[in-house]
């Protein structure tokens, strides 16, 4: 495949105005599926989380999951949407084995939520308002594995294997209106938007929102129009963008690719494109079907949903603080600098740090653990920091430090124990023998030994150079394998000097 020509990004923006639109799919974390009582699980053996409904077997009928509807309404409200008085499901017909029924149950002209807007904060603190067109309920499709081709992709595959565990998992698809005026920050705006949605659904507790597992997926529509034109250009829809960083890169790439084509006078083809993380490029998929080709019609197997106004108000009252407001509050409460706070947000660890503080740790320590040791270890193991330990465990660890049971060095060892699942903090301290020695007898013996090799220290302290005690503390620590209670050693040395 020939490599696409790209125009320099700044030059592309001089000539064209980018307009973006985003479709975000959120998998809801209900116990069972959208229309069937099969479990909604990730990673189960193939075709074990299925019922006849998931397999489209004759005679099986869908029934709506009440909690999926509640979650969808909560999400719609958090996106500032109107909640429909009445809404309906529709069949979206297409023939592909990822759904056995040959149609997807979705919503078409009567979505559950519509006309919203969401404020998102960019890296520099600017707020951009994203207009939301609609949020509708639908079911996820099964997973296909293509076998036979050299690449594992569909091209050249001999056959495909289908696992219907994911078929019927509840989804909410959130569709924005065209987003204008983002200019060179189009990619950043998209990333901030998806990241805000991730925060919202986690805050609501309605989705795991793990992009690497496909709980949260983003399709990015990009079009360019020559400066001064009113009419929107032809758009492409880039799929398979499954990390925040890729969203930004994919949009930037499409702007550069389309600009190069338009500049040569070549028309943009309205099509689906696939993002390739490895090469940082997009490649064409199928031409985009018109809505007509899906032959949508009202789902005859399901009845309309009319959420009562009482339910809507009950869910509205239970909404958590919006992410932007929560960030402002936490930053003030924790007394962090812009830089320190942003680093947590950008690392995607705000939820973890907040929960650690809520579990009793002070904000500085909570930040230190998550941004330091845990991020470093997670990076080495190539996993998310949140998969290593829970915020409660981190708070327990810090509480042992605060109580003087362990010092920072021993705490890092205890953390390694937590990551290795060796038990609770107390059990690990016990098993690994990590308690600091604050027994005066043992400490005095070590201090005496250290003083013997550095006899001038006591005189220095007596003459006012208290910092000289550091040399003795260091020597005692070394002698006791890092387990000495540094504060007590310091007291004892100073006591000795003034005796």
């Amino acid at each position: 495949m020939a490599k696409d020509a790209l125009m320099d990004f700044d030059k592309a923006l001089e000539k064209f105005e980018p307009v973006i639109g985003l479709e975000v799919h959120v998998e809801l974390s209900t116990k069972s599926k959208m229309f069937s009582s099969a479990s909604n699980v990730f990673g189960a053996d193939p075709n074990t989380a299925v019922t006849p409904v998931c397999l489209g077997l004759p005679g099986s009928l869908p029934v709506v999951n009440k909690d999926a509807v509640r979650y969808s309404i909560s999400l719609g409200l958090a996106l500032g949407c109107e909640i429909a008085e009445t809404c309906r499901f529709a069949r979206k017909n297409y023939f592909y084995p990822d759904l056995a029924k040959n149609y997807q149950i979705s919503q078409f002209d009567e979505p559950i939520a519509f006309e919203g807007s969401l404020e998102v904060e960019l890296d520099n603190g600017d707020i951009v308002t994203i207009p939301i067109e609609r949020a509708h309920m639908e079911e996820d499709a099964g997973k296909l594995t293509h076998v036979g081709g050299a690449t594992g992709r569909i091209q050249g595959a001999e056959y495909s294997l289908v696992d219907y565990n994911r078929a019927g998992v509840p989804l909410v698809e959130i569709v924005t209106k065209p987003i204008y005026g983002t200019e060179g920050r189009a990619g950043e705006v998209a990333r901030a938007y998806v990241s805000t949605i991730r925060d919202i659904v986690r805050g609501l507790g309605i989705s795991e929102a793990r992009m690497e597992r496909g709980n949260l997926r983003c399709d990015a529509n990009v079009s360019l129009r020559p400066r001064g034109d009113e009419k929107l250009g032809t758009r492409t829809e880039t799929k398979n963008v499954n990390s925040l960083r890729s969203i930004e890169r994919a949009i930037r790439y499409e702007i550069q690719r389309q600009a190069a084509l338009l500049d040569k006078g070549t028309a943009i083809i309205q099509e689906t494109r696939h993002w390739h993380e490895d090469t940082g490029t997009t490649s064409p998929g199928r031409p985009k079907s018109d809505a007509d080709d899906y032959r949508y019609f009202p789902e005859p197997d399901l009845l309309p949903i009319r959420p009562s106004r009482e339910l809507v108000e009950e869910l509205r009252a239970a909404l958590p603080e919006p992410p932007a407001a929560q960030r402002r509050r936490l930053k003030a409460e924790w007394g962090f600098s812009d830089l320190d706070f942003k680093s947590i947000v950008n690392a995607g660890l705000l939820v973890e740090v907040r929960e650690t503080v809520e579990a009793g740790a002070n904000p500085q320590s909570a930040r230190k653990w998550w941004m330091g040791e845990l991020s470093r270890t997670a990076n080495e193991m190539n996993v998310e920091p949140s998969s290593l330990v829970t915020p409660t465990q981190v708070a327990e660890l810090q509480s042992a430090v605060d109580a003087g049971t362990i010092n920072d060095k021993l705490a890092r060892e205890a953390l390694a124990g937590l990551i290795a699942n060796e038990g609770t903090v107390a059990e690990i301290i016990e098993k690994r023998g990590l308690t600091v020695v604050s027994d005066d007898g043992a400490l005095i013996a070590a201090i005496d030994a250290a003083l013997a090799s550095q006899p001038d220290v006591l005189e220095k302290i007596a003459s006012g150079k208290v910092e000289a005690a550091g040399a003795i503390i260091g020597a005692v620590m070394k002698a006791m394998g890092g387990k000495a209670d540094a504060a007590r050693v310091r007291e004892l040395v100073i006591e000795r000097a003034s005796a």
Partner: protein
Amino acid sequence: MSDITEDTVRHLANLARIALTPEEVTTLTSELAAIVSAVEKVNEAVSADVPATSHPIPMENVWREDVVADELTSEQALTGAPDHDGSRFRVTAILGEEA
């Protein structure tokens, strides 16, 4: 008069992944046209101020609690499959049209 042409039939056949011979296209074009014309008679009976009905029974909010039940084993799930690999359905590779 309906708007069913041979192109419409070929397009629908393509969407439904059905291979048709030219003779079948001709036959189906006239048959589908007749069917659509017959259904169009409904328009004569219904005036514009009658709202569309998607379900004959006036009911709403029929739902189930979020509880897991009645799952199949993979052996049961694959019972009727024309082909499988022991845990997954095996199907002909089709150029992608994921929703």
